[in-house]
């Protein structure tokens, strides 16, 4: 005879006891419905509300002179119904091949699953995997995580980070930094010649600077190795892959170095075209345009990194050099270099993973400070030629569409009213602008919150999730002590719960079935806020 022991612990036991017994008392199954959601594994919206919206979406599509094929718009309305919620794992969840805080991650995954999240986001660092020497990959820690996530019944969104992190400190691979010691021109440089060691300069993408290989080849080998190491997960657990595109993984120049504290007004940023290779490209371009003198350097009258836009004449609201022919020449070149870089990496990723059932993403920054000026200095220095007179994100969205990639937009927690007035910042309108461009080109949008956090951030996120600024997924950054802290976690639970039951303020009320379509069809403008129509 044998005695079985079942272990668990008193409090948890009590809970389980209760559930267990109920199960046996009531008819089984009736009960184990998902906690907050009607659809398992997803953050879904109330159907009446959404029914109205998707109807709206389709009519809007039809009314626009948009070349999108019909079939695409119908799949799109489907994704609209379902913004999947992810949470990012700690940046340093793996170091030296081992999983840090294993128990905390385990418990965390379990909590997130119970909460009904779709999955987690896992940052995979170039500097961790290919740390020692070129071509020597150590995926072990990340494979452990993938397995944990799979067992937890969650999905995984992987971010391939070809950049460095300052906090926690995760540098580029040692051998890359070693090369950089002698060849500092593999890094971006500002006007003072100071290199940025957080990622490689886009100007060396196709130059054989890494032990005879080009960075593009190195990135490709990395992706291939990743693909074969995670073949068991790709398409089943791993549903999305974000390709790192630059500083902090974002498609941009490292124009804002040592980003200032939240209570000080950020500077305009600085153009980063001063490494040898960038200057060379600029020179070639200028010569090709017949303006060799324009190719000798960046704008002479741009302010330095932390200076205000008003510190010099380049960004002046009226009559600034940015509006001059030279300005147009330089900014076109500068932004096209960035887009070409993004194009190279995204098409690389698309081709590597073309036979896998995964979505490829790229992240575009939300350079929202100074958005209220005519010249948008922060965007310009970061490489987005978007001003009061020029829609710069069209080209970006078009590039994403070309590679069938989706876009990740951070800063979904930022609202205008909490910005410093002096910085003339407007995250909400910039987001809407990018959103419009993406919608126009049929690029799916996944959201993120900013790492710095924002007052009322969750509220703003929710607002964005219900708007069309977001139609694919949302990745909440990030799990960690602060995330689970008693000050924060209950708010997060509340946030997740409420996503299912959006407050029905007057503008957002679902109407009785049947009456919606008529009113909906009126709204064909692309302005997103109008979808809060009253009925």
């Amino acid at each position, binding site marked *: *005879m044998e005695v079985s*022991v079942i272990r*668990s612990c008193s409090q948890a036991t*009590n*809970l389980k006891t209760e*559930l267990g017994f109920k199960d046996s008392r009531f008819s089984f199954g009736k009960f184990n419905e998902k906690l907050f959601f009607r659809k398992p594994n997803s953050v879904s919206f109330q159907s009446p509300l959404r029914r109205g919206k998707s109807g709206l979406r389709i009519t809007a599509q039809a009314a626009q002179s948009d070349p999108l094929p019909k079939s695409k718009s119908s799949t799109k309305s489907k994704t609209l119904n379902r913004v999947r919620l992810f949470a990012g794992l700690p940046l340093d969840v793996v170091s030296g091949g081992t999983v840090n805080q294993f*128990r905390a991650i385990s418990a965390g995954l379990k909590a997130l699953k119970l909460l009904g999240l779709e999955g987690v986001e896992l940052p995979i660092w170039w500097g961790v995997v290919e740390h020692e020497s070129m071509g020597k990959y150590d995926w072990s820690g990340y494979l452990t995580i993938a397995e944990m996530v799979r067992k937890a019944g969650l999905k995984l969104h992987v971010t391939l980070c070809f950049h460095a992190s300052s906090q926690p400190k995760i540098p580029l691979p040692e051998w890359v930094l070693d090369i950089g010691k002698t060849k500092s021109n593999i890094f971006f440089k500002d006007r003072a010649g100071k290199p940025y060691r957080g990622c490689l300069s886009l100007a060396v993408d196709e130059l054989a600077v890494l032990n005879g290989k080009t960075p593009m080849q190195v990135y490709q080998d990395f992706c291939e190795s990743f693909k074969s190491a995670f073949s068991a997960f790709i398409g089943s657990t791993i549903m999305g892959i974000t390709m790192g595109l630059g500083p902090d993984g974002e498609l941009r120049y490292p124009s804002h170095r040592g980003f200032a504290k939240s209570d000080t007004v950020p500077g305009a940023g600085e153009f980063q075209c001063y490494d040898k290779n960038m200057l060379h490209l600029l020179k070639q371009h200028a010569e090709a345009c017949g303006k060799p003198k324009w190719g000798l350097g960046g704008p002479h009258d741009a302010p330095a990194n932390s200076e205000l836009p008003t510190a010099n004449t380049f960004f002046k609201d009226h009559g600034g050099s940015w509006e001059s022919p030279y300005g147009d020449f330089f900014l076109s070149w500068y932004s096209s270099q960035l887009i070409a870089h993004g194009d190279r990496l995204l098409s690389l990723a698309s081709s590597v993973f073309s036979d896998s059932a995964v979505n490829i993403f790229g992240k575009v920054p939300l350079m929202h400070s100074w958005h209220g000026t005519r010249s948008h200095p922060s965007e310009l220095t970061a490489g987005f030629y978007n001003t009061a007179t020029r829609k710069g994100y069209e080209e970006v969205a078009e590039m994403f569409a070309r590679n069938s990639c989706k876009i990740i937009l951070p800063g979904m927690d930022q609202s205008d009213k909490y910005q410093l007035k002096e910085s003339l910042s407007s995250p909400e309108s910039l987001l809407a602008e990018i959103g419009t461009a993406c919608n126009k080109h049929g690029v799916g949008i996944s959201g993120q919150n900013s790492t710095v956090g924002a007052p009322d951030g969750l509220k703003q996120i929710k607002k964005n999730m219900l708007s069309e600024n977001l139609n694919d997924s949302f990745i909440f950054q990030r799990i960690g002590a602060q995330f689970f802290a008693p000050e924060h976690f209950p708010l997060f639970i509340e946030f997740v719960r409420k996503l299912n039951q959006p407050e029905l303020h007057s503008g957002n009320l679902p109407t009785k079935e049947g009456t919606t379509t008529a009113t909906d069809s009126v709204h064909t403008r692309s302005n997103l806020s109008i979808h809060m129509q009253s009925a």
Partner: protein
Amino acid sequence: MAAVTIDSLLQNPTLVFRPKAKVLLKPPRSLDCSRNRKLPLSRGSCLCSFNPRRTIHVVRASSSETALIGNFDISSSDDILYKDIFPVKRIEKVEGKFFIRLDRSKDQHDWQLTVGCSLPGKWILHWGVSYLGDSGSEWDQPPKGMRPPGSIPIKDYAIETPLKKLSEGDIFHEVKIDFNPISEIAAIHFVLKDEETGAWYQHRGMDFKVPLVDYLEDDGNIVGAKRGFGVWSGALQQFSNVLLKSEASHADSQNNSIESKDSKNKNRCLEGFYEEQSIVKEVSVGNLVSVAVRKSPETGKVIVCLETDIPGDVVVHWGVCRDDAKIWEIPAAPYPPETTVFKNKALRTLLQPKATGNRSGALFTLDEEHFGFLFVLKLDENTWLKFKENDFYVPLLGTSSVPGQYGQSDSTSEEISSKSYTDGIINEIRNLVSGLSSEKSQKTKKKEVQESILQEIEQLAAEAYSIFRSSITTVPDEVVSETETTKPAVKISSGTGTGFEILCQGFNWESHKSGRWYMELKEKASEISSLGFTVIWLPPPTESVSPEGYMPKDLYNLNSRYGTIDELKELVKSLHEVGMKVLGDVVLNHRCAHFKNQNGVWNIFGGRLNWDDRAVVADDPHFQGRGNKSSGDNFHAAPNIDHSQEFVRKDLKEWLGWLREEIGYDGWRLDFVRGFWGGYVKDYFEASGPYFAVGEYWDSLSYTYGEMDHNQDSHRQRIVDWINATNGTAGAFDVTTKGILHSALERCEYWRLSDQKGKPPGVVGWWPSRAVTFIENHDTGSTQGHWRFPGGKEMQGYAYILTHPGTPAVFYDHIFSHHRSEIASLISVRNRNGIHCRSLVKIVKAERDVYAAIIDEKVAMKIGPGYYEPPSGSQRWSLALEGRDYKVWETS
């Protein structure tokens, strides 16, 4: 959270996962349908079957640490360079017996089922019955008459009855169930539960089933039932046979088990039987590892002497290091006997048994240039003992003093690494997840379930939080301070005062009535001081909408129903003269407005702090604040202040500074701190530099089925989190301890006073120096009585808090009552023996009717009607004080 920790106790369990029973009712014939359904586990728990035949160490579960320390006779010569004793915790399997007996009771009419268990633990029989004609294997609650005293109904389908020792000398905990066989009951079903560990013991994955049907059929006076019964009986026969067959190989079951009787006997008469089986429980056992380092005067070499009382073969896996980096190296030979080299990285030495006692040890002779000695202990292939997840480290050079970093005693400091642990978690998640998502979602919302899942989410989050947090910043852990304060040196911090404070709450809910409370209290100042109090908490001093002062309006107007500002100053002065520190009761969470806004809502303030609605949190619709959302819970009767506003904080800091200066307050009692983030409190305290401060973080304890849970870890975690948020600059009222005392005293369940780790179950068990223990205050007691301490048992409460660590607070009403002299005596025992907020408490008994503890090895106490006397060993105890259901001793 809890489920996870317990798993760590498992060493090599065979994990068996069963999908949750999704079966709808099956015909009774099916064996399967009884499987697991009655067992209170479905989601997230794992079933571990232990094979009782495994060779195991059988040890006694209790071991007295003090006794062991005394036993270690590490060479006491003068040339000792270093000496330390590391406590280690391991998991032992303890083997015992468990029996089931069915026999006739004395009067020969009724029958009796007895279940007993010889292992120590808090055994609970979780049981129910099934009736004739029941289809399926549902349990039902037994009829009232069948329930032994002390049984607790679990919903409507089971009851739980504790197993008890009939007398002190008994080996078995037993429970007896009397029943009349002339009833409709077909069988008794049960499983056994150990409340101490949360483990469930069941019968090969099913409940234990004692069928009574034979007799009934024989008796069968109902025709319908009889016919139905034929089917049943057949099913039973089958069932029994199956059971019997599969058991034959395992159990030493005696021939007279019912099943065998059943199959042999066709006369269907209920027969008595007795069956015994072995049962294995895992208990954590404390052992010690002592290390001494001395220098051999002859050879100049360093000799490390390592000894332990861990039984069995213990292998020391060791090496030396050259510097602080603690990189393992192998020293030069010679090595002790039984040493092997492990992968060129370390040495392994089997400890040799000592001649005396059950200890083993080894001597390591090393050259003197080594910096440190590193080791871990290996008990078997999967069990390693480490020190706080690190190697044990013994400094060899310059080791005259050992910094507090190593070698403090803390029972939680080591963990056993075991592979099965991780498997456990992963499987558990799988189980949980499959359990959840395999079911189709339906529209019916069961609120309770949502709540339960929410609770579970919160617990998981709390666990994740505590790990993440601890790996980021080193929490000011008690471990460090405990060793500090054993020294007489006194460090004052606002969280603890000197550490020897005893607090008096100097008012009750009626104190405002006379209008001259300050003057009345002034007359009592020297009297209160003479009782031994060091700190007094005065009522809220500001102008207030309610007379008691908790609805403050103009913070700078200190004329209240308790008296004028000048009277207050006078009172504070007299209190200072008699040597007491004075706490001001400051209400920072909310403030009543002077004026209405344009919508007619009261949210504009007047007086010196003439804030507008930006100072009011935005998320309370009643007050239309324009501030940010509250950083805590809202108090709905008044506008809640938005502490995230810079100007608000600046003004409040200024105000606190003014109170310190102008009135002479020494510290603060903070009202309703749930309402705002502890980080702000830290800010206020750093600005106002209080001598002592305490916050009121009062929320509800955990209850299941209206009964308080034994484990209140999540409750105390919330309080500890708040203290943490203040960075330890404030203590907090130990609401958890009060709540647990309520249950323990009211229901005579003194076992509640020890947590799973054998520590006090309240905040005082986790962060004693920041716990302000109390049994009553103006809200819970006085004329409000929101949560009054069990009547007549107040002195037991005080005997507990005034002898235990933490800073005890005594309520005014109790001081000026018939309890006064007893309280005074308890305070003098506390002061005489130097018990302080970080004193060490050793719980020696936590049973149904008695709780006993020894504090700092100087004071022994017991509460409860049960018997306890302190041990008559080397220490001589003399009774210091005795009252109704409590006793206190001190060493003489």
